[in-house]
């Protein structure tokens, strides 16, 4: 008996080891596949135009040349102006920050009402709201353009904030409502008997429990709005264009040869804020998405 177990043990661990090696090989190659485009962007942005033309995609730059980054930031031409993408960064932040805050606050309030203060028809209301998550951007372009014009905020930053808030509420409400669904409604009952009102209960009891879902919502909304191109290109004025639109203009504006290094540097910079948000709050994102899925 002992002989058998002694002889099988090394075999078993050999199978386990080779499985492990296979697993890591697959994982590493998939990771490489995903990282490759980013690596190429980074490499290309550090080469000069001459080197890009003569070398291959993956050949490393001979010297680290950051001049393309500087140009993309402050002097590359985006259509008729040549101030780089820096001013559009400001535009994007002016759109994203208020839009994220407003849509998150409204989503939290909606979720609070739809899970803790159910009223006749609240489930139907919620179902109707959910349809908002599935409406493609293109469908609302024309009606929204008319609405913005009617409201007098066409081509303004406030107009874009408005569009993103309206479009985001469906998602933020869904997030908060599902999160609050897992909070026992007896907490609200107890607070009501204790004498707390609608907003006091929200502020003192519900909001302090909401950190994970707030982080999820902020990441989601930040990414969505920062990366949006269609609304940006359709509803922005000349001086309110977000960075995604500017990036497109930068890539399409060329005098003579294409400056791939500048394009790549600009693209990386435009993607950087969402990357930073993920790195800082990524662990909450995964935690928050699974929270409420399993009770306890």
């Amino acid at each position, binding site marked *: 008996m002992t002989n058998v177990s002694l002889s099988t043990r090394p075999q078993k661990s050999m199978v386990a080891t080779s499985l492990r090696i296979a697993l890591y090989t697959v994982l590493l190659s998939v990771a490489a596949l995903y990282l490759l485009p980013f690596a190429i962007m980074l490499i290309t942005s550090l080469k000069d135009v001459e080197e890009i033309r003569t070398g291959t995609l993956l050949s490393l730059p001979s010297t680290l040349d950051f001049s393309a980054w500087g140009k993309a930031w402050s002097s590359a031409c985006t259509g008729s102006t040549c101030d780089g993408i820096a001013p559009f960064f400001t535009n994007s932040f002016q759109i994203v920050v208020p839009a994220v805050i407003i849509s998150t606050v409204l989503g939290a309030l909606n979720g609070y009402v739809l899970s803790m203060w159910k009223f006749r028809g609240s489930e139907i209301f919620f179902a109707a709201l959910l349809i908002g998550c599935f409406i493609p951007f293109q469908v609302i372009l024309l009606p929204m353009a008319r609405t913005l014009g009617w409201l007098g905020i066409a081509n303004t930053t406030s107009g874009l904030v408005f569009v993103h808030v309206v479009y985001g509420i469906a998602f933020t409400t869904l997030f908060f409502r599902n999160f609050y669904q897992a909070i026992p409604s007896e907490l609200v*009952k*107890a607070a009501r*008997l204790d004498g707390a009102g609608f907003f006091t209960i929200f502020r003192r009891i519900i909001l302090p429990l909401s950190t994970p879902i707030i982080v999820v919502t902020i990441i989601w909304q930040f990414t969505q709005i920062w990366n949006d191109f269609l609304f940006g290109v359709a509803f922005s004025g000349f001086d309110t264009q977000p960075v995604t639109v500017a990036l497109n203009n930068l890539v399409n504006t060329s005098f003579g040869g294409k400056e791939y290094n500048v394009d790549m540097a600009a693209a990386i910079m435009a993607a950087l804020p969402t990357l930073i948000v993920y790195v800082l709050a990524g662990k909450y994102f995964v935690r928050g998405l699974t929270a409420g899925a399993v009770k306890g």
Partner: protein
Amino acid sequence: MASLVIDNVKKRYGNTSVLKGIDIAIEAGEFLILVGPSGCGKSTLMNAIAGLEDVTEGRILIDDQDVTFSSPKDRDIAMVFQSYALYPNMTVAENIAFGLEMRKVPKTEREQEVQRVAELLQISHLLNRKPSQLSGGQRQRVAMGRALARRPQLYLFDEPLSNLDAKLRVEMRTEIKKLHQKLKTTIVYVTHDQIEAMTLADRIAVMKDGEVQQLGTPQEIYDNPANLFVAGFMGSPAMNFIPAKVIESGNTIMLELTTNTIETPTTINTIETPTRLPFPNAESLQSHIGKEVLLGLRPEMITEPQPHKAGLEFTVNSHVNVDVVEPMGADTMMITRIGNNEVNCRCHPSYNMVVGATCEVMFDTSKAVAFDIESGQRLD
């Protein structure tokens, strides 16, 4: 402390009636227990008293004031929930003080009150902890503390002990009883545990299908159940229901039932022995002579033959088969069959009972009751 009047309260959701006209009145300082199976409407009634749910019809009065349409915070009620509903982001002290804070009680007074309640419930050492750092029993105490701190007119307890393990539940039960004796508070307490109901209540309201089946003291409910449902719900093990025929024997009306006994362990022939039992309120069965009724007899009324009771007016000895023997320490439960019904008998542990054999038992019908087989209503 306040009295509570529930006057013909009805609650409907669409076409389904959850409460079908509840009438209950309790005095200040009384301990009322609402008991019944799940879905009987007891929690809905509790929520209606608290103001967390609107009633469709009827009135609710606290201390003679109509509060039917008042908001929960204006009713001056505190409630202890089954899940405790402690605010997870606040410490124990903050949990207890929250209601006072909402009622704009000054900080120093709040702190004194928290200290008072914490000492009363022996949770002073827990005041700085969060609810997640407490055990089930400790959370239960904090939940009670939160209710006690405000000194409300009326306390509502919604199955407060059902999340505790058996031993702790018994301890906390006694604790709640002591607290009520000490503070003389008016309490409405919902439970589905009939032992909790018996031990704690001044009065019990047994509910079923949105109606109060019976409202009375624990002893009344135990001895004089209004119908088959109440009789079967209260008491553990439940009351025995034995089909019996009402017969006239001489001048008196008696109940006749048939016990089966096996002649010897080796044969399967059973002998049907008719047993005639006297009945305390026999005249009330006059109209049922010749018909079958259900005789209700508590397990402790079917025992081994007890010499000091022999020859009394309502005792009769008979033989039954022993099907199951369950020693419980203080007593031994013996289970037999009479007619088609299982019957529990509470015997002394020293009494010799052999499974499969027959033994002699004594029926004591001095507290027996009778029910109509069809309607389940009391006959006597």
